[in-house]
């Protein structure tokens, strides 16, 4: 079984976002970037499946500008075998990314495609579902547990009401929740070894995919600030304020 894992480079989750003054987006210059957190879970799961002898190859792919390749290199350092970088500049919408991934899937013929359930920058939560629609494959979104059984996967999904378990036939798409596993850290020797692993570079236009956005970003602004609150001296004052001023209890 071959697993393709899609990873995205985003602003690190510990960074406080700053909106650009001209309203065109958020500041990304000199800001720490990392792999989208649930994409790390997707890589970890694929590597674990390979370590359990149930997969033969793990291929990490990213779509994006030059520096996006860092995320593939990081995936190689934690156990992916080789990488693919599809170069594309500007804002990439999930629809365009899923069309690019579709082209790569048709060429690479993986049995499974894993990725994070959502990217923490645009918060779209679309790419996995769109890719499975384009391929007409089954989808297991928000996965918190995956059992590989021959040519099937049993997947537990995190849904609003609790947990749902489904069985999907391979080939299939799985989007990963943070609860799926605990991603490992790359060791220094593995980081060195990863530098020698191959990364194939392709451009989005070579694949014949038009990545121009369909959704125009008109402006980006700071959310309304909350007005400053007060400190209360003790619990009695707090309860009195909640009862008589805020009238919420």
């Amino acid at each position: 079984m071959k697993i393709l894992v899609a990873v995205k480079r985003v602003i690190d989750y510990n960074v406080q976002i700053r909106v650009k003054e001209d309203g065109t987006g958020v500041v990304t210059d000199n800001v720490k970037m990392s792999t989208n957190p649930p994409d790390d879970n997707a890589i970890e799961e694929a590597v674990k499946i390979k370590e359990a002898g149930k997969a033969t190859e793990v291929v990490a792919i990213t779509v994006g500008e030059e520096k996006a390749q860092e995320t593939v290199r990081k995936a190689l350092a934690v156990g992916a075998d080789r990488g693919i970088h599809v170069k594309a500049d500007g804002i990439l919408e999930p629809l365009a990314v899923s069309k690019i991934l579709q082209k790569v899937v048709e060429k690479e013929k993986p049995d499974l495609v894993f990725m994070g359930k959502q990217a923490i920058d645009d918060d779209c939560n679309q790419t996995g579902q769109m890719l499975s629609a384009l391929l007409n494959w089954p989808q297991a979104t928000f996965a918190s547990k995956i059992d590989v059984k021959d040519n099937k996967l049993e997947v537990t999904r995190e849904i609003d009401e609790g947990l749902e378990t489904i069985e999907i036939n391979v080939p299939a798409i799985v989007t990963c929740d943070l609860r799926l596993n605990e991603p490992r850290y790359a060791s220094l020797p593995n980081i060195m070894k990863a530098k020698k692993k191959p990364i194939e570079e392709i451009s989005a236009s070579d694949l014949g995919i038009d990545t121009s956005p369909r959704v125009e970003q008109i402006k980006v602004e700071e959310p309304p600030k909350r007005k400053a609150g007060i400190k209360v001296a003790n619990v009695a004052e707090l309860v009195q304020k909640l009862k008589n001023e805020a009238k919420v209890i």
Partner: protein
Amino acid sequence: MAVLLIAEHNNKELRPFTLNAATAASQIDSEVHAVIIGNDSAEASKQLSELPVIKKVLSVEAPHYENFTAENFAPVVVKLAENYSHIICSANTFGKNLMPRIAAHLDTSQVSDIIKVISSDTFVRPIYAGNAFATVKSNDAKKCVTIRPTSFEPCESSGGSAPIEKIDAGEEFSNTKFIKREEIKSDRPELGTARIVVSGGRGMQSGDNFKLITEIADKLGAAIGASRAAVDAGYISNDHQVGQTGKVVVPDLYIAVGISGAIQHLAGMKESKVIVAINKDGEAPIFSVADYGLEADLFEALPQFMEELNKLNTIQK
């Protein structure tokens, strides 16, 4: 052209957020139709037809729609889409799972999780977990939009009498099989819809200490939340997690106890109407969003809080 709302239900009744999504749909266009896909879902269809904002209900029933599998649902909506300008659904796990599958089939770039309708093609949506708001304009001919339910009021639930039209079921997608659903049952209000949420963080120091939170939540009729730090430390199960990677909550009252206020937690609760923070670190970021801050040791403050609540003659439920 009219707007098509995808109803969320459990085959017996509508799920509450369908009413919020109906409000958002009616802000886009006054002609709102709703499709309900299910199995033996006549009662839910009837409820849908009683929403005054809905002008027509399309009902599709078949055994393979029993479990809301996106692979079965998407083709039904795609087939109906030619008659509609917009497809609308809630951005909860049902809609998040389903809508992109529809959008890809329609070659539409979806607009996810909107919090405001500006016009029929322009919407406001949070990005970076609510740390920025983007105003976006969709240039696709057909628009697929999911809405954040807590940003729209529920519509009226009675008084309407829309006609219910039965439509033919599609084929079953054979590569996905539903096995089971384990719903977390509790006497407490659901975290996502509770009027009051009491949350504990790493400052609780242990799972046992959460009983201090439970007591207060019982007294207030509140749901229990937690920060990711408390979940990661194993104090409480992850379905209680509030934040960017957990649930986004907008209660009337949010009480954060022993929570420092990491960015990712604030993203999940800072839209609450009234925020209380109890923390012994006066510099904790949680105080910057709190309406009422109490700088105190929670192990002293929580029992006192309980005592004060017990002194009150009445407590709103």
